């Protein structure tokens, strides 16, 4: 990149915006803060697009291969001579792609919020938090150093915490924010230890060097780290899996997904930004970032990624079919889609055609960002309209909010993978990759995509069709600022599939030509169509069929609608075990044993002094007697015993 300042500005602008609004927003920018935030972000969006253009078409490619470019690097915290957190900017295909995605979606959300959050008392604070999040997310994807990424990782977590808990007077919101932060923090613990392990053996924290040292077969570091093993697993596997756990936490992979549905307590645009398009894919991004190490040095770890992803995809899809809170449905669908990306990485190899999965995963990340945020924003405007998240309060809204309706439909088609919408293309690549490497995964993926189509249209119908509109139209569909993002995103939801990601974003930087025969596409598409038709039959018009079916399924259905009791399990572990079995005893021990010991010392001293007070009897003759006794004992001691 010709001028690093410009790239640096991309994250810095939101940061300054955050400081400005955070410190003075409440007083001075209570109304204008939205505009300020949006404008600053607009600039960084422009910049990131420019960067993308320059990278992909001018500077990025050196003799046909996209390079990792360290734009600049500054030693921020030096642990040891060769071991330091550097604040740097690393450009490579995925970074640049993410840059585009994040900045654009964030911009959309900013714009949308102008209308959605209008009249909030803490409007300025809201935008401050949004900017903080955007800053941290951009920082995360630009990181050139694994510890730097961890740093921004935490920041992203906390800004998501702040945004989820934005309605701080709602206990549920507070609880959700706490849950989100703590669960991800727990996952980050794995990440941190993973970093410690990798850094210790690779003697570096810098991504470039780290990857090089641990992925080149001949490198001495690799042999050492493979030699060192713990519980029969090589240090490398430990490191990678722990890091992956961190990623799984952020990306809400099973079993660390429990925070995501609750996170929907936050303002809907926030969900659109954080919990659909950007933060939740950080995990995918992380794995992709370290992909060479996974793929070349430790396929075992990659297997773990694959199975986790596949299972989560399916698991979430099943739950999504049963939820009645529209945002929760979307949340689970997000989880499921991310599962897609994960196992796509899992099935991928490193180089050439075999890197298809990697490419597909990135592609899906790209497209998913748009249509999922579109879905959320759509849901947002619906909620804005009916003031409720529950399906039962909705229905027949298609007349009342046409734009929302159309865009939402497009998004649904996109996620269901109906050509020619964006989702179709990315999904095809993933399925292809799965098909080529692992049939089991392929089957799971197929079923999942069918389910996806089903529950998305269940959602669609129950919002816009089924019964007639119950709510009367007191205020319109929403301000213009809410409509524009919907339209723009809708366009992208159609168009983004046509972007030739394959020639830009690949594991080894070499463009690959994806060849998905039409014949291959028949199965998934038809499955999706079946799902849609089923949904149409069941939910287009209100009838008692769904109820009956659910009763037919009985236990399974309830289990699914209760999210398979994962939350309860967690509750048990934390409340019963951590609090009652460790916390309480610790506190008790401290209060009674340790402190008691100290007090015991004091009391026993007092007791002794009480016991011996008799010596001071007050009788002068006794005194004389003791005097005499003293002499006698001295004489005995030092003349007869001592000598």
């Amino acid at each position, binding site marked *: 990149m010709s001028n690093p300042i410009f790239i640096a500005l991309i994250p810095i602008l939101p940061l300054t915006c955050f400081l400005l609004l955070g410190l003075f927003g409440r007083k001075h920018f209570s109304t204008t803060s939205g505009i300020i935030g949006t404008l600053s972000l607009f600039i960084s969006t422009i910049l990131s697009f420019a960067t993308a253009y320059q990278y992909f078409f001018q500077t990025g490619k050196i003799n046909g291969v996209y390079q990792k470019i360290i734009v600049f690097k500054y030693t921020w915290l030096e642990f040891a001579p060769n071991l330091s957190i550097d604040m740097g900017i690393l450009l490579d295909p995925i970074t640049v792609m993410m840059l585009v995605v994040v900045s654009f979606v964030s911009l959309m959300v900013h714009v949308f919020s102008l209308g959605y959050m209008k009249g909030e008392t803490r409007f300025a604070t809201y935008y401050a938090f949004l900017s903080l999040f955007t800053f941290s997310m951009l920082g995360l994807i630009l990181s050139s150093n694994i510890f730097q990424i961890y740093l921004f990782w935490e920041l992203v977590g906390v800004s998501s915490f702040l945004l989820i808990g934005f309605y701080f007077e709602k206990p549920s919101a507070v609880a959700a924010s706490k849950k989100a932060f703590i669960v991800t923090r727990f996952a980050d613990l794995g990440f941190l230890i993973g970093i410690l392990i990798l850094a210790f053996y690779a003697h570096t924290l810098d991504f470039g060097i780290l990857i090089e040292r641990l992925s080149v077969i001949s490198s001495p570091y690799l042999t050492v780290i493979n030699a060192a093993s713990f519980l029969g697993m090589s240090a490398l596997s430990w490191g990678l899996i722990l890091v992956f756990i961190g990623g799984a936490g952020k990306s809400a992979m099973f079993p660390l997904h429990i925070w995501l549905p609750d996170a929907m307590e936050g303002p809907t645009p926030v969900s659109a930004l954080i919990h659909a398009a950007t933060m939740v894919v950080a995990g995918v991004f992380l794995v992709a970032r370290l992909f060479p190490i996974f793929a070349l040095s430790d396929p075992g770890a990659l297997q773990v990624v694959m199975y986790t992803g596949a299972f989560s995809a399916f698991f979430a899809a099943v739950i999504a079919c049963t939820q009645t809170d529209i945002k929760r449905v979307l949340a689970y669908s997000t989880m499921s889609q991310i599962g897609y990306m994960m196992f796509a990485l899992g099935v991928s190899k490193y180089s050439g055609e075999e890197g298809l999965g990697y490419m597909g995963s990135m592609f899906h990340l790209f497209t998913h960002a748009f249509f999922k945020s579109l879905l959320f924003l759509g849901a947002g405007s619906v909620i804005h309209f009916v003031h409720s998240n529950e399906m039962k309060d909705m229905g027949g809204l298609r007349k009342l909010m046409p734009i929302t309706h159309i865009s939402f439909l497009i998004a649904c088609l996109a996620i269901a993978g109906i050509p020619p919408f964006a989702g179709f293309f990315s999904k095809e690549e993933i399925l292809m990759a799965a098909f080529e490497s692992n049939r089991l995964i392929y089957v799971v993926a197929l079923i999942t995509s069918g389910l996806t189509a089903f529950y998305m249209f269940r959602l669609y119908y129950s919002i816009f069709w089924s019964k007639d509109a119950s709510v009367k139209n007191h205020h319109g569909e929403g301000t213009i600022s809410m409509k524009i993002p919907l339209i723009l995103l809708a366009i992208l939801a159609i168009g983004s599939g046509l972007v030739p990601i394959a020639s830009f974003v690949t594991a080894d930087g070499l463009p690959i030509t994806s060849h998905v025969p039409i014949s291959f596409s028949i199965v998934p598409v038809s499955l999706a169509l079946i799902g849609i038709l089923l949904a149409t039959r069941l939910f287009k018009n209100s009838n008692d069929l769904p109820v009956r079916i659910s009763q037919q399924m009985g236990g399974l259905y309830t289990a699914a609608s209760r999210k398979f009791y994962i939350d309860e399990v967690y509750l048990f572990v934390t409340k019963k075990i951590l609090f009652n079995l460790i916390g309480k005893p610790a506190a008790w021990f401290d209060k009674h044993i340790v402190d008691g010991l100290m007090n015991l010392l004091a009391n026993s001293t007092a007791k002794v002094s009480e016991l011996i*007070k008799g010596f*001071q*009897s*007050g*009788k*002068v*003759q006794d005194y*004389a*007697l003791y005097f*005499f006794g003293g002499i006698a004992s001295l004489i005995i001691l030092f003349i007869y015993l001592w000598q």
Partner: protein
Amino acid sequence: MNEVPLTHILFLSTALFFIGAYGLFTRRNMITMLMAIELMLNSVNINFVAFNKYLYADKLDGIFFSIFIITIAAAEAAVAIAIIINLYRSHHSIDVEDATELKY
């Protein structure tokens, strides 16, 4: 003529000393206790004189010391008795057991 060996005298004085001590420990009457102390002091005097006479007859340190002891004992007794009288005023008794308010 054969004279009394030193050891006899020392035995006497030591016996005297312990008798005095015993008296001090057992008698309740303050005056008697004072007398007991006098007994002890006298045993010391005997010691001094005896040592002087038998071992170091060339100098008179011991003799002198015993004279001083006698004098001071007198002074001590005087003050003690004054105090006891004063005590009697307040306690109406010269039994040590009655003067045990200050304790512990």
